[in-house]
């Protein structure tokens, strides 16, 4: 399945910056989200109720639609682990400060996890299939699997993305994963997945997989590659996120050191930034300058951010 468009807003200058992969450096811990001028994408009356996760997603989605030259996608699918947590926190604060008095409803109505996908549809006046996946660090991979099912079922173009905003008062990632050195980030990456590449050269999504409560990433990875007729040596580059010693040892046993790159170094940590890694991989494949990709133009994204979950995405040029 063909990837007709890709767009990312992150802590790096990735938005509308084709070729960003060759410019990426290690993430500065003090970095912040680089926001475009959202007024270019979202009217003021709609924008005023939105938190970052909604604004980023809409901007990336509109950018994707423009890149792919399509009017309406057949489906809009979002993976988000925390959803609109700024609005959730805002409503909780309002409950506290209202103290039994009159309560303002606005942050409540834009607090459901599917507000992102819903707002994109509302802005586009899109009546198609609309879904939101919220399975921790597997949210984006499940959104991708859903998109692939949709293409098989007959959708022509699916808008699919992963987005999360960092909000540590509701979910302390460092405490939950018990790792102090993590750099939690906000970000959104959206793509148009198409059934037909219309003759253009580009990058294909070969497969996506989601494995929860696993014992071994080796078994899952080998099964994933085998079912697609691939093997570890066919992979030019493995972009990985692994936070524990066991996972790292397994990864080193499956792949050679030269194949491996830790994407958390550039991307930071979020439960949906395997979507960032996917765009990063696409950009590298299109750029073609990475020596690791000269012989085998395939990238495997291995998302093991939470040790008992494994998300896998396979791209090929």
């Amino acid at each position, binding site marked *: 399945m063909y990837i007709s468009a890709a767009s990312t807003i992150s802590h790096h200058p990735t938005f509308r910056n084709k070729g960003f992969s060759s410019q990426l450096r290690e993430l500065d811990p003090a970095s912040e989200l680089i926001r475009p001028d959202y007024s270019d994408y979202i009217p*003021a*009356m709609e*924008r*005023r*109720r939105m938190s970052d996760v909604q604004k980023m997603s809409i901007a990336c989605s509109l950018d994707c639609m423009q890149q792919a030259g399509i009017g309406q996608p057949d489906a809009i699918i979002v993976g988000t682990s925390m959803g609109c947590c700024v609005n959730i926190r805002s409503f909780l604060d309002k409950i506290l400060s209202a103290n039994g*008095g*009159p*309560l*303002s*409803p*606005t942050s409540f*109505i834009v607090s459901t996890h599917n507000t992102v996908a819903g707002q994109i549809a509302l802005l586009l006046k899109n009546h198609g299939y609309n879904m939101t996946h919220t399975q921790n660090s597997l949210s984006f991979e499940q959104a991708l699997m859903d998109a692939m099912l949709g293409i098989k079922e007959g959708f022509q173009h699916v808008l699919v993305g992963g987005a999360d905003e960092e909000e540590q008062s509701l979910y302390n990632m460092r405490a939950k994963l018990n790792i102090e050195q993590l750099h939690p980030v906000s970000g959104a990456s959206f793509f148009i997945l198409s059934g037909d590449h219309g003759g253009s050269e580009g990058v294909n999504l070969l497969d996506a997989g989601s494995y929860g409560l696993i014992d071994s990433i080796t078994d899952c990875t080998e099964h994933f590659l085998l079912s697609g007729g691939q093997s570890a040596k066919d992979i030019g580059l493995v972009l990985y996120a692994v936070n524990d010693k066991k996972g790292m040892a397994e990864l080193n046993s499956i792949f050679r050191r030269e194949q491996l790159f830790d994407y958390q170094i550039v991307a930071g940590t979020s439960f949906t930034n395997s979507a960032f890694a996917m765009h990063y991989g696409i950009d590298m494949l299109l750029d073609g300058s990475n020596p690791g990709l000269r012989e085998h133009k395939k990238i495997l994204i291995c998302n093991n951010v939470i040790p008992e979950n494994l998300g896998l995405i396979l791209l090929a040029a």
Partner: protein
Amino acid sequence: MEDLKYELKRQIIEELKLEDIKPEDIQDDAPLIGDGLGLDSIDALELVVLLEKYHGVKIMDEEIGKKVLTSINTMADFIVEEKAKAT
């Protein structure tokens, strides 16, 4: 009364997060919901909360709400009337 109307405009802009709008841009008799300022049903609920929170007056039902929330003028008149009843 003019101070009250200005205050209402300021509060509406702040509570409803109306960027790029200043109190001077809102006409006293311009429609608030739908046409004019272009507010929606959720904004209407926010205006009800605003009236109670900042002016201590309650809108008791939807019919009254529709009349009161028509414009700055009708909102200001309602506040003045309700406060007079209370004293």
